[in-house]
Structures are given as C-alpha cells and as structure tokens.
C-alpha cells in the first residue's frame, strides 16, 4: 500500500520538471503560435553551459542560475528577433522546419564541444536529502524543491500576465498581433520578450534537470516530448493544467517503471495517447488550438 503511494508521490514530484519544460514551450506558443522544436535542446544547452561554468569556477550549480537565466533570456530575445520572427505567418512549415534545424545544429554542436558522454551537474548533498511526509514515506528534498519552483514560476507568470501592463501587452499580442501595432506596440519586440521569458524558464529547467538526472547532447528531444505531453494532457493555454499534466505524466512513468524499468517512458507516452483519445482538448482546456 505504502509502496504504491510512494510511487505516485515520486511521480508527482517528477511532474515539476515536466511542467517547467512545458511552461516555456506553452508561453511562446500562446503569444506567437510558435512551436519551438528546439526547446528541449535549449534546456540541455543551458545544462551544458552550467557544467562548463562549474568546471571552470567550481561554484555550486545553482549559483550558475544567476548567470544562466539572463544569458538564456538574451539568447531567446536575439534568436526571436534575428531568426524566428521571420518565420511567423500563416504557413506552419517555416517555424517548424527552422526550429527543427536548430535542434539538430545544437545537438551536434554540443557533441563537438562536450563529447557524446552522459553528464550530471554536481549538486552535492542536495539531491540525497529527504523529508518524511508520513511514517515510511520519504520524499527527496530536491524534486520537492523543483515542484515548488515550478509552481512558483507558473504563479509568477500568471501574476505577470494578468497584473502588469507588459503582461497585458503580451496577452493582447496573443489575441491579435496585427491590431496591437495600431495601439503603438511593436509586436516584434513583444515576441522577443516572450521568447526571452520562455528561454529564461528553459535555462532554469536545464540547470535543475541537469542536477537530477544524467544528460547528454541528444537528451533534448525527450524533454521536448515530455513538455509537449504535459501541455496537451493539461489543456492548451492553461498553465496550472500544464502542471497537473506534468504530474500525470510523471505518475504514469513511475507506475510503468515499477512494472518494468523498460516501460517507464513508454507508459508515459501511452498515457498521453490515452488521454488524447478520451479528451482531445486536454483535461482542463482553456484555449482552442
């Protein structure tokens, strides 16, 4: 009994990572209908940058976030204004193909720079510490912290989007990016800011996942798929739904892994397809695709 409870709780905790992957993806899709197929690779890129910083300065990986989050935000803004803005339009092909190309370029670039080996960020004692929830039910402090962080990021984003003038501009751009220009707002700049936010979250997610599991230059796509599944399970455009979607995915994977370690990822994918079959718009839909 307690062992199944344990599995479910572990799965829910892992959901925090998936929600973080998904938030950045969801944000730019919401604002400019852009699906960034390289999102998972940018997460891994951030993890590798953190690895390089740790090797050079031997500071704690979490301290790297001070540098990585702004760096990723700048990268996102520049990439959006320099390349991705040119691909936006009615045709869905250009953004998909350009970001897919970026994904391949990043994977191979990382392979050149860091070799194909698996790596992990040295988080020290942080990843082994645990707290007791119930007698016999211990949860890791680190994934718990990540789940809380994911919740805080989503809460912060909601506050930003609904309580600040800039957030209102982002939402308005999402509704109609042509009309917004009549209001004197440069939609290209807004797109850049949305990408900066998305990449900042990707940077955070990269360092956090890099300290939790092994990663290699080709780990990016699976992050993309998990984040995407969390979005679709939770319902497009609903960030809290995405968090729950991530948890459902995490639980499905944890249950699969309990049956057979080889079923872990497969069980998550199958749960995703089952939910897609039962509720095509996700469990908590808010926005039409």
């Amino acid at each position, binding site marked *: 009994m307690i062992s199944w409870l344990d599995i479910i709780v572990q799965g829910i905790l892992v959901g925090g990572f998936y929600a973080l992957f998904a938030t950045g993806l969801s944000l730019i899709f919401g604002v400019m209908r852009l699906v960034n197929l390289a999102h998972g690779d940018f997460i891994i890129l951030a993890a590798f940058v953190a690895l390089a910083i740790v090797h050079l300065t031997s500071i704690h990986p979490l301290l790297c976030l001070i540098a990585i989050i702004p760096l990723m935000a700048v990268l996102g803004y520049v990439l959006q204004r320099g*390349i991705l803005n040119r691909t936006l339009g009615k045709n869905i092909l250009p953004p*998909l193909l350009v970001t897919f190309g970026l994904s391949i370029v990043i994977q191979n670039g990382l392979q050149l720079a860091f070799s194909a080996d698996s790596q992990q960020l040295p988080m020290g004692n942080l990843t082994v510490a645990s707290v007791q929830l119930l007698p016999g039910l211990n949860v890791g402090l680190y994934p718990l912290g990540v789940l809380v962080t994911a919740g805080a990021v989503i809460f912060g984003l909601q506050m930003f989007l609904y309580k600040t003038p800039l957030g209102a501009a982002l939402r308005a751009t999402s509704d109609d990016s042509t009309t917004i220009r009549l209001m004197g707002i440069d939609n290209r700049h807004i797109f850049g800011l949305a990408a900066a936010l998305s990449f900042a979250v990707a940077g955070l997610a990269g360092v956090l996942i890099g300290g939790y599991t092994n990663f290699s230059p080709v780990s990016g796509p699976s992050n993309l*798929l998990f984040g995407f599944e969390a979005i679709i399970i939770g319902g497009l455009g609903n960030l809290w739904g995405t968090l729950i979607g991530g948890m459902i995915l995490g639980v499905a994977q944890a249950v699969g892994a309990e049956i057979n370690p080889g079923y872990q990822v497969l069980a998550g994918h199958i749960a995703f397809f089952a939910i897609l079959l039962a509720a095509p718009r996700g469990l908590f839909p808010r926005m039409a695709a």
Partner: protein
Amino acid sequence: MKEASPSFLKKRSKKLLQRFAPRWAASGPTRREADQKFFGSFFQKRTFFPAALLLCAVLPLFGDNSDRQLGLEFAATLTLATLWNLLAGYAGVVSIGQQAFVGLGGYLLFALVVFAGVPALAAVPVAAVACGVIAIPSARLLFRLRGPFFAIGSWVLAEVFRLAFAQISSLGGGSGMSLPIMSILAISHSRPDRLLLFYILSAALALATTALVVALLKSRFGLGLTAIRDSEPAAASLGVDVMWLKQVVYVVVASVTGLTGALLFLQNIRISPDSAFSVNDWTANIIFIVVIGGIGRLEGPLIGCLVFFGFRAAFADYGAWYLIALGVLAIAMMLLAPSGIAGLLAKKSNQKASGA
C-alpha cells in the same frame, strides 16, 4: 446616390473588371502554372521516365558493389524524400515521425521471416500493407492534434514504436537482431547478385513513387492537394474535404514508407530499435533534403538528394560538423529561399522566358 440602379452598378463593376483584370492576369504566373512550366518540362515530358529508367538500368553495369550500395541508398533516400514532400509540401501534414513507418516496415519484415517463415522478398509487400493498416488508427489518433502539435505527436508515436520493439525480446530487444542466414541465401548465394537485385528494386520503387506522386497530382485528388498547399481555408470553402484528404495521404505515405523501410533493412540484414526508428536518419536528413531541394515542388527531392549525397561524399569525414552545416544550410534556405533550389531555378527560367 439613390438613383444608382443595379444595372448601373453592373456596368460599373464590369468596367472595373476590365480595368483590373488584365493587371491581375499579368501579375505573373501562379505557383501552379510555374510548377507546370518547370516540371512540365522535367517530369511530365514523355522522355523523363524512359530516360530515368535507362539511366537506372545502365548504371549498375559499370559499378562495383559499393556503387550498387550507394545507388540503392540514393534510391531509398529519394523515395523517402518524395513521400515526405507529398505529405508536407502538398498535403500540409508536417510529420517528424516518419521513422515510425521505416522502422515498422523493417521490423514487420523481420517478424514475418523469423516467426512465420515467410520468404524474405515476399514479406516486403506484406510489411508495406501492414504499415498502411496500422497507419489508419494512427492517423485517427494523431489528427486530433492540429498543425504544429501534429508534428510532435507523430514523433511521440515513433518513440512508442521504438520503445515497444525494444521490449520484444524475441526480436532481439534493445540490441536488435539479424535475419536468419538461410532466408538471405534463399534470395541468392552471391552477394553482388543480391546487391544488384536490391538496387533494381530500390530504383524501381523510387521511380514508381515519383510516378505515383505525378499521377496523384494530375488527378482530381491532386487538384485538392494543390489547393490545400496554396490555401487550406480556401480549399475547404470550395468543398475540398481537407481532413479526409490529409488522412488518406498520410496512410498511403505510411505504407510506401514501410515498403522502403522493409527493403532497406532486408538489404542491411541487421535491425535494431535505434537504427530502425532513428529520427536523424529517416526524418531529419529527409527534411533537410526536401527543404534544400524545394518543398512543395516535384523536382525538389531529386535536387535535394543530389546536394545531400554530394555534400556527404565531400564532408563525411567531418562527422558532426557536416550535420551542423546541413542544418544551417536548411535553415538559411527556409529563411531566404523557402521554395528551395527548385524554386530558384524556376524563378530564373521564368525570368528568362519573360525577358525574351
């Protein structure tokens, strides 16, 4: 202007039409016309297929084993690129999961040979049909996802296949398996003869696929597809059943993709989940080929394949650099010349025609 009678309006609109209609007509050829102009002189001329057939038939007479190997690889790549172009360039279905059917075709072939004792060559068409059948429920499921999300969904499906086949221990699990040697020898005892046969089959498949796409596009069905390519809402408003058409194309493409996969892994003799369902080999490279050659253009895949194989021969020693360069080239192409090399060539030939 109360007195403005309908007849006055009619007259007026007629005048307007006369004034502007010639200007619309003179605003340059539509994409369809430009296409026909270009591939009209390329694929539709009666000389193309006999010439290509002759070329394919004559080439192996001069080559050795490695040339035949290269030739069949080229033909298989061209087939996959032509199919992806039909899917993305004409039907507007962007899939990043075509490796699902390459791998499925390969694995079904192995399963038929190993479990049912089917002769290897006979198993190839059976695997293709089975891929088409499996693609039907897959399409029903995946087409619940719209546009860009379909792309990622198709990738998830391919991952499901990869992970599932890695769990089947009688098919070698995660490390894969080889075809029983007897089933290979039953085709022919001599390796050069087998290579020649596989080469001929792959070349025939590439030609047949191109012919299929040409025939499809010339048909009523193809008119609907071209309409979808040019404008999906407009096509839907004129009574084209967009969703149905897309799903039919998806299933047909899946089946022929499975056929290609079965041939590829029959020739390869070995299969493993990672090689069979490789997103890099069966989708990324194919996408780059189509984008560089010219997406939504019939001759695009052929031009792209020529560039890709030339590029590979020149830079294969540089490993990851070569994939980076290919990716950068594809991105640049998409941004600067979205209709690829074929589009650039067509533009040039149009300029020449109008300049003369």
